């Protein structure tokens, strides 16, 4: 009999392998060499220090948006609004980063807090409406995404600059970028944000699993009636959950604003960091550790895939199908687990 632990270990590996196989078949059907394709994918993510640095850079915001969605989910809320929260967080970090003069030790924390607060505010409104009026958070958060996008664009063009499409660069004192990290990664855009993201994951785990606040949030997430019966303030917990969730997403925006780019451009469309965060959270089983691992998978595939068209000649459309297939198989690992259990049960008899 396989132990549960073994199954927990084997299932993700099998699902990734199956995803790779399915992707390989698609590539074969269209006449491309899957082995060359996958070597290109691997090299694109880990082939040299530059790619490695870029992969880590991509993973950083994914961890945070994944945490944001996972945190809300554990509290019984579906935060589709991580995308908008990323945008307002990004904007707030760049705003504070460029408009204030202060030493790093004050300036950097201040910008990071500003981003988290902006995201929290963007989560507060849907939380308030849900708690007080019972409006479904999915609808409001979707709307809030559009409001964030267009308000941010307006502010960039009309308030932060004079009709320019991108803000001034942030002060060095607010930057997460590091000469040293860039140097050892062949001048990739890797920055210190990864430490913040990993620290945020620890915070989420501790808050949710170890504190009375987390106990309440989880109880409300599972059963609002029982929580109310037990004397918890359900409305307060809903608002709090949305604010913390939004805070994590806001931090993801700060990673882009303070680390990767150092400024913000007016966007014609969404960054997709928030939407990918939904997949990251669900793939990671809505836990902190799971979200980190899933963010790594997403980051690796995303950056590695960039190399497939150039190195292996696989068209980018096909690459996207391939990546989708791998994620699909990982997400459906439940089926694999079920098959495994069934298979081994039969064998026992």
């Amino acid at each position: 009999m396989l132990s549960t632990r073994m199954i927990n270990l084997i299932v993700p590996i099998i699902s990734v392998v199956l995803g790779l196989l399915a992707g390989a078949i698609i590539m074969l059907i269209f006449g491309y060499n899957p082995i060359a394709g996958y070597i290109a994918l691997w090299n694109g993510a880990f082939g040299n220090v530059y790619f490695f640095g870029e992969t880590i850079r991509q993973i950083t915001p994914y961890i945070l948006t994944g945490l944001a969605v996972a945190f809300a989910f554990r509290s019984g809320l579906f935060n589709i609004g991580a995308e908008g929260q990323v945008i307002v967080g990004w904007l707030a970090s760049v705003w504070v980063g460029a408009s204030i003069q202060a030493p790093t030790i004050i300036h950097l924390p201040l910008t990071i807090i500003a981003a988290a607060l902006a995201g929290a505010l963007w989560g507060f409104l849907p939380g308030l409406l849900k708690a007080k009026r019972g409006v479904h958070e999915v609808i409001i958060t979707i709307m809030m995404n559009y409001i964030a996008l267009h308000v941010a664009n307006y502010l960039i063009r009309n308030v932060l600059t004079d009709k320019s499409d991108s803000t001034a660069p942030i002060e060095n004192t607010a930057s997460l970028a590091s000469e040293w990290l860039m140097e050892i990664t062949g001048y990739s855009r890797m920055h210190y944000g990864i430490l913040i993201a990993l620290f945020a994951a620890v915070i989420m785990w501790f808050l949710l699993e170890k504190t009375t606040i987390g106990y309440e949030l989880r109880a409300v997430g599972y059963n609002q009636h029982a929580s109310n019966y037990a004397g918890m303030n359900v409305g307060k917990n809903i608002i709090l959950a949305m604010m913390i969730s939004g805070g994590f997403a806001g931090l993801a925006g700060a990673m882009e604003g303070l680390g990767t780019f150092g400024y913000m451009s007016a966007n014609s469309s969404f960054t997709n960091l928030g939407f990918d965060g939904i997949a990251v959270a669900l793939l990671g089983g809505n836990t902190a550790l799971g979200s980190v691992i899933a963010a790594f998978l997403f980051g690796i595939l995303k950056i590695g895939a960039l190399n497939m068209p150039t190195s292996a000649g696989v068209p980018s459309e096909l690459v996207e199908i391939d990546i989708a297939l791998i994620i699909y198989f990982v997400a459906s690992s439940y089926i694999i687990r079920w098959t495994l259990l069934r298979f081994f049960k039969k064998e026992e008899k």
Partner: protein
Amino acid sequence: MENFVIEMLDIRKEFPGIVANNNITLQVKQGEIHALLGENGAGKSTLMNVLFGLYQPEKGEIRVKGKKVNITDPNVANDLGIGMVHQHFMLVDTFTVTQNIILGNEPRKFGMIDMKRAEKEVLELSERYGLKVDPQAKISDISVGMQQRVEILKTLYRGAEVLILDEPTAVLTPQEIKELITIMKSLIKEGISIILITHKLKEIMEVCDRCTVIRKGEGIGTVNVSETNPNELASLMVGREVNFKTEKKQAEPKHAVLSITDLRVHDARNVPMVKGLNLEVKAGEIVGIAGVDGNGQSELIEAITGLRASEAGRIMLNEKDITNLTPRKVTQSGVSHIPQDRHKFGLVLDFPIGENMVLQTYYQQPFAKGGVLSFKNVYQHARTLIQEYDVRTPSEYTKARALSGGNQQKAIIAREVDRSPDLIIAAQPTRGLDVGAIEFIHNKLIEERDKGKAVLLVSFELDEIMNLSDKIAVMFDGDIVATVEPGEINEQELGLLMAGSKKEKVGGE
């Protein structure tokens, strides 16, 4: 040879680690009501799931009308004329009665559903078996009793000749139970055979012809109901003598703990449900509220516990005003609440049983310090309660969902009683439980009374009210219409009061 319609011979069914059924034999005669009696977790449902094709037995033989059959899945069971009505109904809420009955078996005309013919067929069927339903009503609009009739019609529509009813009375009001009994009797007149899964002895004595008892997965035997009595059935089921009449001393009521004056409460649709109610519960007594469901009992409890705002009136606990306080404040004032719906209110089913046992106290020492939970203390506390209250669970880390109903209820009672409150509100505390668990819970409530706690009991089971209460308050249409002592009234008189007849007829106070 006797004319058996269903025979299950020496059935054995194992699950990893346990033998759920061990050599159980069940033989059902044509046209009889056959009871299948056993405690929660005795293996009744497993045996029926074997018959219905959901499980395959490791050993044993099933015969339908004398012919050996192999029931591989529920469709085979359907074809053999076996129909099952589950305890939790399998109905589409937004469909009509007719749509639900024909689902999967629709009469067609030119490829479209022939709704006219379907409704006619349903009506014919319902008249033939005396199952009154409105074919055009939506499921969400009809009562639980009628939903159950729809479930029965569903099986009959598919040509069932043997009906398995899984704890059919657990969800019904006393009136609906009476109707169901009439229905069962008319069904057997039409040649249908019924297997009734239950642990309610009264119902068995009333309607069943024979009764097969199983205990801890073992077949204990089959008895003719006419030749037995409830005491014998109970001891067969539990394996020891059971006391129905809970032993208790005379109550020694002291000061008033709860006193309610002129309370008015509206329900969620803002309809007045409690209309100027007065009630007093003293320390050291159990006051039972008797009444038909829906006469304001739920609203009354919700108002006391702070779950629902009261419109007017005053609720005093130990001479402190607790009207319209938050649930937390009410709890802290010394009120415990065993809720009517243990899944909806009493437990967070996806939390481990240990975490459920601190649902109201998690933030207090020693379970938390500076906002950080001490799981060591939480689970230590849980282990103590599990032992003291005999909660049967694999461990304190097991999710509450995985426990049987009786053990879930014991866990709630452990939590509520352990807080050492002044007032215990117990709403339907033994709903759906077997006699062993009922006995335990009744004894606990009396024990708390004897310790000087005030107990407010709400129950739709007259037996329970008569048995436990030191004082019975009859609730009708949002008010207490009579207060009587259990010794001075019988069940018929109580029933009349509950139906709203004036108390002068009975004498009363």
